[in-house]
Every structure is written in structure tokens, then in C-alpha cells.
């Protein structure tokens, strides 16, 4: 049984790769994402200056050979800050989406597997959460909590699990009636085992798409929050707060706006292209269920 399942999976993966690699845009996106992750990880080695050290003699100097991206209002090197900022932006993206997915999977699994009352409660909670405009909810919560990177990650995660929950629930509803589940139940396998070993792996594909597309949304949200001043505390750089720092000097210090904005743009764009490519490559699977419709596109 397991062996058959294993080789079927391998075949799927090969099929997936074949479709995905034909999509040039998605491949580009994926390559850029890889580069970005690399840059983020090696930032401490690559950054030419201490990103947090002010130098009041170099306030707002334009790009030059010693400061490729210029300096900020406190004289700090923008290139170094953008590099370090990528670490925060990317980790916020990954972690918050991870949290959202974890919560979503649990909720969706519970709803889909147990059905009945549990399903009702979970779906009401989904509806409840969906009714709040996301940004407003974030503002409200963040204004009350101590601002830190963990708060932001958690809060973005806590407000973004609904899509995954629905996906997982839908998958459960479809798969629950399948033979191997009935077989497992009759053999006496417990609920968690069934959920984790049989059903979830089948749901992975659309969840992955949702996660990949959720990362750029999370990055944009973090940038927006930092821009409003609700992000990580100074002096730590994130792309959003470099933009915020430069917001008042935009016409004399274009470099403060251009580079972090471009960084956000390129990152989000690449993730989106890659995510779309993944989704298109999974298309044959999606055709069978209506999961495609449920994958959230929201900001």
C-alpha cells in the first residue's frame, strides 16, 4: 500500500516539474526567490557598513562608490540596511504564513473530519474572522500590543488562516468518503493518524500554493505596517521602515524610496510568479475539485 502510494507520488512530482519548468515566468520568479533567500542569509557577510550606526556628517548623501545606495537621514548606509531588512521581511513572510497555515490546517482538519457541530463552530469562526477587514483588525491589535517582530508575525498569522482552513476542510470533505479512509477506520486507526498520514498529504498541494501566495501578501502587509510606524523598533531596518524614514525626503533623497520599494516589488513579484506557476502546474488536480476558487488572492 505504502509503496504504491510512494511511486504514485513520485510520478506526480515529475509531472508537476515538467509543467512548472515550461513556464518561463515562474522559473524566473523561482530563481529570484532563491537569490533573495541567499542574500538574506549571507547579509552579515555581504553588508559593507554597520547598518545601525549613525554618522551625522553623512546625512542623506546620494549613491556613491562607498555607499552604493546612498545614506539615510541619520547617515547610515542604505545598502546594508536593505540587506539586513531582507532578513526581517523574509522571516516575517515565512513565519507568519507558517503560523497561518498551521492554524488553518488544524481548524480545517477538525472541521472536515469531525463534521457536525465542530464543523459548524469552525465555519462560524471563519466567517467571523472574514468579516473583519484585515488591515483594520491588524491596526487595532497592534496598537494595543508592544510592537516587536514576534507580535507582527503572530498577528499577521492569526488573521490569515481562514483560506487554508477552508481548503483543508474541502479536501477532507472530498477525501473522507474515499476507500482508504473507510478501510483505515474499519481497521481501527485513530483519527489523528488518519488525518496526518492519509488525508493531509493529499491536501498539501493546494495548501502549498496558498502559502506561497500568502508570503508576498504578508511581506506587503508588514511593509505597510512599518510604513505606518507599527513595525519593528528602531534602529532595526525593514524595507517598510526604510521607506518610512525616507518618506519625508522623497524629492531630495530618491534613493531612500527607490531601493527598498524596488526590493519589495521584486520580492513580491517573484513569489507571485512562482506561486502562480506552481498553481498552474498543479492544475490537473485542481480541475477535479473546486479548490482553485477558494485559494485566496487577497492582499
Amino acid at each position, binding site marked *: 500500500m505504502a509503496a504504491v502510494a510512494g511511486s504514485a507520488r513520485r510520478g506526480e512530482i515529475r509531472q508537476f516539474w515538467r509543467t512548472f519548468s515550461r513556464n518561463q515566468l515562474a522559473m524566473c520568479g523561482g530563481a529570484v526567490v532563491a537569490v533573495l533567500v541567499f542574500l538574506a542569509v549571507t547579509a552579515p557577510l555581504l553588508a559593507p557598513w554597520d547598518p545601525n550606526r549613525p554618522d551625522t556628517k553623512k546625512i542623506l548623501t546620494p549613491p556613491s562608490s562607498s555607499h552604493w545606495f546612498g545614506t539615510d537621514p541619520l547617515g547610515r548606509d542604505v545598502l546594508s540596511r536593505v540587506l539586513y531588512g531582507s532578513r526581517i521581511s523574509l522571516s516575517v513572510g515565512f513565519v507568519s504564513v507558517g503560523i497561518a497555515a498551521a492554524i488553518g490546517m488544524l481548524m480545517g482538519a477538525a472541521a472536515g473530519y469531525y463534521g457536525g457541530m465542530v464543523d459548524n463552530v469552525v465555519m462560524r469562526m471563519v466567517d467571523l474572522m472574514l468579516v473583519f477587514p484585515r488591515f483594520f483588525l491588524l491596526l487595532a491589535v497592534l496598537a494595543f500590543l508592544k*510592537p516587536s517582530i514576534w507580535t507582527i508575525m503572530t498577528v499577521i498569522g492569526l488573521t490569515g488562516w481562514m483560506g487554508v482552513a477552508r481548503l483543508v476542510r474541502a479536501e477532507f470533505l472530498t477525501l473522507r468518503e474515499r476507500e482508504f479512509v473507510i478501510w483505515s477506520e474499519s481497521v481501527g486507526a485513530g483519527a489523528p493518524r488518519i488525518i496526518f498520514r492519509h488525508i493531509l498529504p493529499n491536501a498539501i498541494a493546494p495548501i502549498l500554493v496558498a502559502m506561497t501566495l500568502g508570503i508576498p501578501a504578508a511581506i506587503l502587509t508588514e511593509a505597510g505596517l512599518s510604513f505606518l*510606524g507599527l513595525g519593528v523598533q528602531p534602529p532595526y531596518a525593514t524595507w517598510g521602515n526604510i521607506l518610512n524614514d525616507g518618506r519625508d525626503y522623497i524629492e531630495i533623497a530618491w534613493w531612500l524610496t527607490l531601493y527598498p520599494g524596488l526590493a519589495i516589488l521584486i520580492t513580491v513579484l517573484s513569489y507571485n510568479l512562482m506561486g502562480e506557476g506552481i498553481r498552474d502546474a498543479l492544475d490537473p488536480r485542481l480541475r477535479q475539485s473546486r479548490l482553485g476558487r477558494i485559494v485566496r488572492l487577497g492582499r
Partner: protein
Amino acid sequence: MPGRRVRARAVLTWIAGLGLLAAACNGQIESGADEASAGPPAYGDTFIQASIGDIGGLIPSLTSDQSSHEVGGMIYDGLVKLDKDLNMVPAMAESWTYSTDCLDLTFRLRRDIKWHDGYPFNADDVVFTYQAMVNPKTPAPFKEGFLLVKSVDAPDPYTVHVHYDKPYARAVETWGTYILPKHLLQSFVDAGTMRESPQNSQPVGTGPYRFQEWKPGEKVVLVANPDYYEGRPYLSRVVYRVIPSQATIFLELKAKGVDYVSTLTGIQYARQTEYPAFRKAYHKFRYPASDYTFIGFNLKDPRFADRRVRQAFAYAINKQELIDGVRLGLAREATGPIRPGTWAYTDKVARFDFDPTKARELLAEAGWKDRDGDGVLEDKDGKPFTVTIRTNQGNDERKKIAEIVQQRLKEIGIKVDIQLIEWAAFIKEFVKPRRFELVVLGLGTGTDPDQFVVWHSSQRGPDQMNRTGYANPEVDALLEAGRSSCVQSERVRYYHRIQEILAEDLPMIFLYNRDALPVVAARIHGVSPSPSGILYNFNEWYVPKAQQRYTSG
């Protein structure tokens, strides 16, 4: 002589209304538009001002936000005001006398004043204002001055007699506040429903401008009061546009959508307003503002109870670097809480100029050494010296100060975290319950040097202003003496001594007094900088007929 009465107690630190200059230095006009081609004073035109927050209401006695006080200052008037040299001069009162024991104050009121609805103004309104302010049902934030009054009465319709229990140095100043109309507000004050009265949406005052309209969130429009007792102001309309973002206000300025900004930031002044088109369209001014920025210690924290630690921090900080980095040089180092150039000021006090070596020495004396070579100082139990600097969100200057100071303290071995907290939460969660270590804040210097509420040991409660928790019996005695005397030569001695002690004790590190950097549209003539700023003669500003931009009449 004619001028605009300013309310001297607003303490929000970006007020730039008053400043006093040392004899040598007057305000400078920074651009070269042509004053000669002016044209005679003419009535007309509209003056557009940006306001970052919407007004909280139209009875400024009940509000504490700056916008409503600016607007209120135009609509209402007080018995006295400040002239360009920061002297107290008559406004609605023609004259006043102070008894020699400083307990009785008598005002003689002008007889030619009318409320905007035509009703005559007299002493009853003044008595009523006092009663309204001290009424417990009135939610007014600034009652203090009135609570010290023993009694007020009006022996005749144009005389007001105020009696104090104890001499109160700021007595006359108190009566510069907004006088409220008895005939319109009496019943509301009695019921405690002032906020819901029509006065709060259609105010009637005695000031140089009358209320015309308020579109909440958008604008407030005032029109000149033709019956103003000092003569109708030249500018026919004043409009406050609500623009909630500093960036947008500045952009609007550049796009010529506003005529006045009360202060630019250092970078805006020095780097962003130097191009020819701007200099042709606007005049920039510069004069010392009336506040100081400081880093406050929480004296309850045992580490800061040791004076050497505080002084070490002062040595570690380079004030000039802060001025250069944060204000681009447009500020002066501060040595104490009293406004430079005023009669009570002295700079002959202890100084702690930038010297990291001395800082380390002092800290070592106090028991802080780097015992494990990790670059951070520890005490004898090995606990590292880490502090958190807190300040409020939305204030770019304070944020930069925190970042620069963080770096400097790092160099002497102190690990610093920064927290920027939204204002309301900051005050409630950290400042009031004294749950902070270091804060970056500002305070106004006001016109009277009385510092009682900030430094007296009785003012350390959660809702009071002695935030550092400073308690020094000698200073207490001096504060009390200074407050209850009305003889300037006596008070000078007290305040000099207070400044000496504070500079030595350092409950806070006084960083700098910044310069106000206002900008006024070039077509507006009559602007003339003085020790009190530029707004003192607002009623005399005019736009020559040929240059009027918004014709309204």
C-alpha cells in the same frame, strides 16, 4: 500694540509660538523676496494654514490638542496677552493693578467690546468664566491656575476683582485664557453639558475672527470680525485645512496649497526649501522656540539613583552631534528647564561636555566595569547594564535622538533597546506608573519660570508632572518661594539657584532648545520676527490688493 493673544500653557512640543532671544540675536529672514514692491495694506484674501489634527472642539477650555487652541485663540480673547517682547500687556482689560501683598488683582475692562453675536461683553462674563472653570462638572484639563483663586467678583460691570489666598506668581497670566460667554453657556455649565452646547459647534467669542464653519476632518473657516476692538484684521478669512500627515503638509506647502507652516523640520529648512521657486513664493524665518528636549531618568531605578551614573550618561552624549543629526544645527544646547534669554535664565551652571573616557571612569567608580570582556558593563554581581529608551511614536526627532544616543551609550558599554510607543499607551502604561528607565520627551518653557509642577516632590503622583520622581528639599523650598513671590528681583535668585542644582543633579539630561522654523507665503506682508515669534501681530498681516489670491472679501 495690536497683536494676537497667545495661550501660554500649551506644552505640546512642536509649538513654535514664543521664543525669546538673547539681546544679540534676532529672528532672521531667510529668503530674498522683494518687500519693496509691497503695496499699501489692504483688506481681503484668505490665509490657509495646515493642521495636522482635527480640532477636538470649539471650546478650547475643554480641550488639550494644539489645533483647537490655535483656532480658539482666534475666536476667543483673554484679559491680557503677550506682546512681541514677551511682556504681559492689556487685551480685553484696559489695565490692572496688583496689591502690594500680591493677594489682590483688579482688572479694569474695556467698554467697547461685543461678543460676535452683538451682545455686550462685561465683567459678568469674566466671573462666569472663572466659575465655569472651577465647576467640578466641567471637564477642563487646565484648571490649576483657577483653582488657586480664592474669590472673584465684579463690583461694577467693567471691573473684576480677584482675590488669592497666597501670592501666586502666575496670577495675571491665568487671566489670558479664553473668556466664555455667560449669556450662552450658563445653563450648560450648570448642567455639566458644555460639550453638547451649541457653543461647541457654533462658537461665539470676542476675538479678532468669527467662526464660520467647521467641516469635521476637513477644515475650519473663520472670517474677520469687523467689530474687533483693536480694528478689523486685514486678512478676511482664515482657513485651517486638516491634513493628517506631515509629509502631505509639506508637499502641499511646496504645491502652494497652504500659506503657513508653523515650523519646518531641520532637514526641510536646510535642504528641501532652497530652490528658487520656493524662495520666491515663501519667506522662511528662524527664532528660538519655547521648549526643550530632554532625556529623563527614572530616579526610582536604583541604578539611576546614583548621581555618578547620571552624570556619566551626560558625558557619554554629544549634544552637538544630536543637534547636527536631528536638527541640522538649528538648535542650541540646553542647560536647564528655563528659557534662555528670559530674566530668570542663567547658563553659569555645571556642564558635562562630551567625554566618553570620563563617562567610563565615573561608571567604574559607581561599580560598573566590563568584567567579562563582552563590551558590556556589569555590576559586581555580573548583571549587565541594559536599558530601554522609550519615546512616543510619530515623532521623528525623538526617534533619531534615541538612535544616536543608543549608539553612543553602546560605545561606553551600555546596551540599549529602543521602544516607540503610541502616545496614549506610552503615557498610560509607562510614563504615569513610572515604568520606564529612560524617556525622550519635551517640555515647554512657558513664559513664567515657575517650575513647581515639574520638580516639586509633591508632584510625583501618577497624574502629575514630576515624571522623573525628583525630590530635593532645597529645590522644593526654592520652588515654593519662587511661586509665592511677585517680586522679580527676589525670584531671580531662587531660580538661578534651582538651575545650578538641577544641572549638577541631572534628574534629566537637558539636550537642546530648538529653533522654530516657520514659513509664510511671500505675498503676505507685515510679518516681522520678534522675541515672541511671528504670530504676535497676525491681525496686521495683509496682502496687497494686486497680489491677493483668494478673493472673498
